[in-house]
């Protein structure tokens, strides 16, 4: 199968699309990026490529669609096998990586939405507490899997780094907008350092959207849409 002709349907602010961009960058894969304008209605290509969920990101590889960001990241790792591996090679380490990526999927996005829907101080304090519960477990996971190195994947960015780190831009938005600390020296010192290392990584720094741009988007688009519609599962 020719490895040419790779397209990615995404939206610029989506952390899920960002996961795929990171994986493609790590593997030095050339691709065409197609921005979905979700406010203009879903494109025909999106509906045709992802009839089940009608959501981005969708990777189109020679016109064959792959959907769901973590499924796409694993696909990229299995197709483009040169260079660094995104998942570890040992089956047990892979199981641990998949476990924590699934944990991130279940808990992190929901706890971030809790911040966005918090409309008083009590709700905000609760959102911080809930995020702490999640981050303390991920701190422990980081210590065990990094083995003293800068990333969950060790020396290099791996699967859990991508799954969790794709939210790093949004962490900064929440911290700036709500004047809270999501990571701190007392409870999550390693994650505090990890966020810095992740955002400074050559594969990340050029492709992650700026905090100001995301904050503007959150204020003008995300928050009004959350207030307008009853919270729905993502």
């Amino acid at each position, binding site marked *: 199968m020719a490895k040419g002709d790779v397209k990615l349907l995404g939206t610029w602010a989506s952390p899920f699309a960002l996961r795929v961009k990171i994986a493609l960058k790590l593997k030095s894969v050339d691709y065409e990026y197609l921005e979905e304008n979700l406010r203009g209605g879903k494109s025909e290509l999106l509906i045709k490529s992802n009839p*089940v*969920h009608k959501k981005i990101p969708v990777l189109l*590889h020679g016109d*064959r669609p*792959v*959907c*769901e960001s973590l*499924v*796409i990241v*694993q*696909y990229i790792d*299995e*197709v483009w096998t040169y260079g660094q591996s995104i998942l570890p090679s040992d*089956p*047990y380490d*892979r*199981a641990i990586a*998949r*476990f924590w990526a*699934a*944990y991130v999927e279940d808990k992190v996005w929901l706890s971030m939405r809790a911040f966005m829907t918090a409309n008083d101080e009590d709700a905000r304090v609760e959102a911080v507490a809930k995020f702490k519960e999640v981050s303390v*477990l991920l701190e422990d996971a980081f210590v065990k899997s990094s083995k003293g190195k800068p990333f969950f994947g060790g020396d290099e960015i791996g699967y859990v780094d991508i799954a969790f780190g794709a939210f790093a831009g949004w962490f900064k938005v929440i911290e700036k907008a709500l004047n809270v600390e999501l990571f701190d020296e007392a409870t999550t010192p390693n994650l505090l350092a990890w966020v810095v290392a992740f955002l400074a990584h050559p594969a990340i720094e050029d492709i992650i959207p700026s905090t100001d741009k995301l904050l503007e988007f959150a204020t003008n688009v995300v928050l009004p849409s959350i207030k307008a519609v009853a919270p729905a599962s993502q």
Partner: protein
Amino acid sequence: MASTKEEVKLIGFWSSPYSRKVEIALQLKGIKYQYLEERDLKNNKSPELLKYNPVHKKVPVLIHNGRPVVESLVILEYIDETWTQGPALLPKDPYERAMVRFWCKFIDDKCSPAVRKYLTLGPETDGENARAEAQECLKFLENELKGKKYFGGQTIGMVDIVAIGVAFWQRTLQEITEKELMNKQDFPLLCAWADELLSCSAIGDNLPPKDKFISLIRSRREAATATTK
């Protein structure tokens, strides 16, 4: 590669589909294991469960040479990658593997919850929307079976194992509630697939005893109705 001295244990619960899926996979691969039943998952979790799955405190937990693996989808892939003898649960081709992962996630995250939601709605609730959503999910699975005996093609694969909830748990719940959902007219392929799957010994041997399961569901429903009165 599996070492010569292997110790495989599984902490499970007799009526849990997630637990049974792992047992099915272990049997398909011909892996010998020690089964540890959680006696009281609701009120009194065992020290082993809390030790080996401190994050979620749920079954199933696979313990391989003392190291735990949790979350049924993670366990199934771990089994496939560790024990390479016996039938492959996932195909080799990366695109086919991506499709397997996609459908497994769809079944766990979207289809099963939608079907369960409809089947457990009380009689006073208008279930039309819930029914439509459940049927839409099942329709995607029905289409996926076109031209195939199993989701895995000619042989049982990971999607078939993950979809066992549809074939047994949800079909039984359908019988108990007498709600029409997965019928032969609208879902001929799914119904044929379910019958085929359940007749396979690796599957049939590892399902909860039907009468015992029906009693459990009935008593749970009665308890739920009693508390809402």
